[in-house]
Every structure is written in structure tokens, then in C-alpha cells.
């Protein structure tokens, strides 16, 4: 694993940029624990101060220091994305593998559900969840709901791999040696689909964070918890754009773009690493 990281760092520009960007963002998030102000409190500093030596990223019209606010916001946003990704990976793995391996009516039933999740419009669903759950709609719950809605595409992908694995010889061997379905899936097939899981994690995080930003901006999330979307929401509430408080929008947008581009670059470079063909051409390896 370390060797892979070293190789990536050595040979892959994208990976290096990605690591740097994500590193900065994670660093920012880590700083949140040292914030001198309680993150949800308003009017703790003078409002509307432009970026300066004292307030690096300026202050908001709500009297919050943009820098410290941002550290908490990006932490929550990243945590959110990670939670969605992890839960939905588990779902898509289980469903994809089971569906692909079992086939037959299990496959058909699961894929019907799967396709339903693909065709159903998410937005009204999320808004209605918000209306129903209200105050109890914490970011964690939102993450769980988004995970429950966000596994379908990747489950299909995993299923197609599982279907091809099923026809491979080693699967037959495993079946003849009396392994149960669970054992086959967990021990034999899982390692093959792990690279896919890994690369889709990043994309899924992008998707979920993007949706979270969108929902927050529209005011459909718990705005008590600072997130990137929540910051933009409050900035809009104060017409920061026309009021000239550009730093309130610009810095969160910049950080979220950094996070996204960073994550994406990591996903792409790992994907390339996993795919031997493109790795070969990149590293110019041996005579063929």
C-alpha cells in the first residue's frame, strides 16, 4: 500500500496535486478544533470586515470570522460526504454482488428496485423528508437518507462485474468446494470489485456534497450546523453579493472547489493506477 502511494506520488502529477489540495482542505478542517469562537454563534466579531491581517478571510454580515467559520463548515461538509459515501458503498456492494451473483428472480427484483431509485426524482423526495423530519433532520440523518438514495448507479456497475466474475473458473471451484454464497461474495468476489468501490467513493462524495450544498443553499437542511452550503445560504440571506461582501461567498466557493477538484484528481489517478493499461503507458514500462 505504501509502495503504491510512493509510486503515485512519484509518477503521477494529478495525484500530487490532488493530495496537496485535499491536504490543504483537511488541514483547514482540522483547524476547526482550534477555533476561538463557538461555530454557531453570531456577532462575535465586527461584521462586514474585508479580508485583513486580523481576519484573513474577512468577517460575515452576521459577525462571524469567515476563516474559522469555514474551517468548521468544511469539516462538516467533508464528514458528511464521507458518511454518505461509506454507507452507500456498503449498500451498493451488497446489492450489486448479490444481484450479479445470484441472478434469476433475486436479480430481477433487486434491479427493479435499483432502477426505481435511478428514475425517481430525488429533489422532491429530499425536500419532503426534510419537511417530515424537520428538527430531527440532522446532518447524520440526511447523510443516511442520501446514502439510501445514492447507491443505485454503482450497484449496477458492481453487478455487471459480479456477473462476469460468476462465470470465471475460480467461482465454480469455490462453489464445488462448498463455500456459501456469503463466503464466495466476501472472500472471492469482493477483492475484484474493491477498486471500483474505491474509485466510486470519490465520485459519490462529490455527488453527495454537491447535493448537500444545493439543498442548504435552498434552505432545506439544518442551517444550525455550519456547512459550506449553509454559509452560502446565510450569505444569500444577507445579499452579500450585491452588498459587496464578496469574501463571504468567494472563500467557501474556493475551498469547496479545491476539495472537489482534489478528491476528483485522487479518484482519477487511483483509477489510472488500478487500470494497468494506462499505468503502463504512463510509466513507459518494459518492452512488450
Amino acid at each position, binding site marked *: 500500500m505504501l509502495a503504491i502511494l510512493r509510486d503515485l506520488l512519484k509518477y503521477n502529477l*494529478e495525484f500530487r496535486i490532488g493530495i496537496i489540495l485535499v491536504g490543504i482542505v483537511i488541514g483547514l478542517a482540522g483547524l476547526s478544533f482550534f477555533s476561538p469562537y463557538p461555530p454557531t454563534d453570531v456577532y462575535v466579531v465586527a461584521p462586514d470586515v474585508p479580508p485583513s491581517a486580523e481576519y484573513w478571510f474577512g468577517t460575515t454580515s452576521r459577525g462571524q470570522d469567515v476563516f474559522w467559520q469555514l474551517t468548521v463548515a468544511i469539516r462538516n461538509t467533508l464528514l458528511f460526504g464521507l458518511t454518505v459515501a461509506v454507507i452507500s458503498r456498503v449498500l451498493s456492494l451488497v446489492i450489486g454482488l448479490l444481484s450479479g451473483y445470484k441472478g434469476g428472480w433475486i436479480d*430481477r427484483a433487486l*434491479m*427493479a*428496485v435499483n*432502477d*426505481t431509485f*435511478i*428514475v*425517481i*426524482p*430525488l*429533489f*422532491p*423526495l429530499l*425536500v*419532503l423528508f426534510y*419537511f*417530515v423530519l424537520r428538527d430531527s433532520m440532522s446532518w447524520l440523518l440526511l447523510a443516511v437518507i442520501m446514502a439510501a438514495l445514492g447507491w443505485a*448507479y454503482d450497484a449496477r456497475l458492481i453487478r455487471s462485474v459480479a456477473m462476469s466474475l460468476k462465470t470465471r473458473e475460480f467461482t465454480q471451484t469455490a462453489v464445488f468446494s462448498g463455500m456459501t454464497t456469503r463466503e464466495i461474495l466476501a472472500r472471492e468476489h469482493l477483492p475484484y470489485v474493491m477498486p471500483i468501490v474505491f474509485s466510486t467513493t470519490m465520485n459519490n462524495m*462529490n455527488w453527495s*456534497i*454537491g*447535493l448537500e*450544498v*444545493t439543498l442548504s*443553499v*435552498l434552505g432545506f437542511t439544518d442551517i444550525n450546523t455550519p456547512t459550506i452550503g449553509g454559509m*452560502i445560504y446565510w450569505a444569500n440571506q444577507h445579499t452579500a*453579493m*450585491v452588498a459587496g461582501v464578496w469574501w463571504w*461567498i468567494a472563500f467557501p*466557493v474556493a475551498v*469547496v*472547489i479545491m476539495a*472537489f*477538484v482534489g*478528491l*476528483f*484528481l485522487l479518484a*482519477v489517478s487511483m*483509477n*489510472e493506477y488500478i*487500470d494497468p*493499461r*494506462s499505468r503502463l*503507458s504512463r510509466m513507459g514500462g518494459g518492452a512488450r
Partner: protein
Amino acid sequence: MSGYLAYLAKRLGQFVLVVFIGVNLAYVVTHATPIDPVEQSISAATSFGNTAPEAIEQMRQSLKELYGLGGSWSQQYLTFWSRILRADFGPSLSAFPTPVSALIGRALPWTMGLLIVSTVVTWALGNLLGGLAGYYQRNRALKLMGVVAMGLHPIPYYIVALVLLIVFGFVWPVLPINGGSAMNLPQGWTWAYASSVLLHSILPALSLILIGVGSWFLGMRSLVSNIVTEDYVQFAELGGVNRERILGSYVMRNALGPQVTGLAMSLGGIFNGAIITEKVFGYPGVGTLLVDAVYAGDYGLVLGVTTISILGVSIGVLAIDLLYPLLDPRVQVR
């Protein structure tokens, strides 16, 4: 051919099943809304007036009756399906008695026009450029484009739209940022109207294209850069087959399959996309209607829009699935 027919039947069955589950799910979810359309109507109708409280209870009763909210759950459910099968979504509760279909009918052309066109343009552009970039790997302009696509692609749509709005609406105000056409232009096939619609669609379309083109570009580029290492491409190059033919019939043609499937899938995002686009650019369409309807507890309208969306997307996916065997000779109908 009978194999294809069996496939067709199976696929159609699956389509019906998905639509059925989807619409039912939508039905359950929309009816779970805590917003009471009657209360919403009364509040909106009286919040500024001086209506005596005792009158309100009477209003409540007559509205319930009018909106057809009486009757048991099962009755309402059956009514719902019998209507759907007649392609009738009933009246909108928040714009009673206007039929839901009339409201959707007015909004849908905007959404379809903007989103289908920009989705298809995005797809075509992304794949074309991505294909070129994968094939001509050493081209600087295309490399640069790849970097730009990589940077743009992962940014949330809202942010891209916001930035465009700021740049072209505020900083360098050259493009309209509100509405679907200029005010007081009669709708019709006139140059003035058409150009106004086109002009107003530039920013929304641009935002959709910018955000969408990247993923197609990157997807196609990586597909193509794998395909160019395939034996048949190398063989064709050694055979002196002309470059354009290799790019078109060998490389792109082989990369097309997965991308077409992807297109079908991305149609699913259309209605989600519409909401934000309309919100940011004040563009008319189904998204605004949907958000309004959710706010007003107008489940008739929510269900109408959702059902249309589910149907539209499923039909899109179905069509592409059915056409796929024609696209890829290797695919054997399941």
C-alpha cells in the same frame, strides 16, 4: 428475431414494474407531506384579509369537499390510478380548479427545451472532444481542455451557476439573468421572440453544458485512450487505414456503447437539474412548479410532475436499452 422479441417483452415488463414502483413510491411520499393543502389555501387566502375565525371552519369544510380530499385512503388511491391510466392528474390543489396537466403542459416545453437540448449538446460535445483528446493525446489544446474539464467537472452545479450569474449578470452584464424571454413579446414563431428565448437560454444552457461536458469528456477520453491500445486499432494504424476512419469507425464507434447508456442514465438527472437552474436563472419550467407544489402541499401537482419525470426517464432508458443491440453487434439479447 424471436430472441429479440422475448427480450423486448422482458424489458417491457421490467419497465412497467419500475414505473409502477416509482409512481407508488411517489404517491406514498407525497401523501406523507405534513403540509395540508386546505390549510395552505386558507392561510394564503386570508392572511391579509379580515376574515372572522368562525368563517374559517366553514371554508375548511367546503375546500375539503371541493378538493376531493374526503373518502378513505383506498378510495383515493384507486381514484388516483384510474386517473393516471386515463392520463389525467386531476386538478391542482394550489391552483384549483386548473388541471395539473394544464400547468405541466405550460411549463414542460421550457424544461424539455432547455434540458434535453443542453444534455444532448453536452453529451455530443463532451464525447467528441473527449474522443479527440483520447486519440490525439499529444495535442496541447486538447490537453488544456482536459485540465479545464477536470477542474470544472467536480464542482457542484449550484456553484458553477452562481459564478456564471455573477460574471455575466453582475461583473460583466451582457446576458439576461432572469426569465425565459423578454417581457411583453408575444409568444410565437417570430425572430424577435425566438432570439429572445435563445438569448435568455444562454446562461442556463452554458451552466449545464459546462458542468456536464467535463464528465463526458473525461469518460470518453479514458475510454478512448484504452481503446487506442486495442489490437484492432493498432492493426488498423499499421494497415495505413486513414486516420479519420480509425478515429470514427474504430475508436469512437467502440467507445459509443457505454456512453450511450450513460446518456440514458443522465436523463434521470434532468428534473433535478431543472430545479436549481430555474431557481438561479429565474427560468420558467417544471422545477419551479414542483418546488411551489411541494410548498403548497399540492400533492396532485407534485405527483403529476414526479410521474411525468419517472415516465420520461424510464422511457428514455428503455428506448436506449432496446436500441442497444442495434448499436453493439456483440450484445446478445438476454
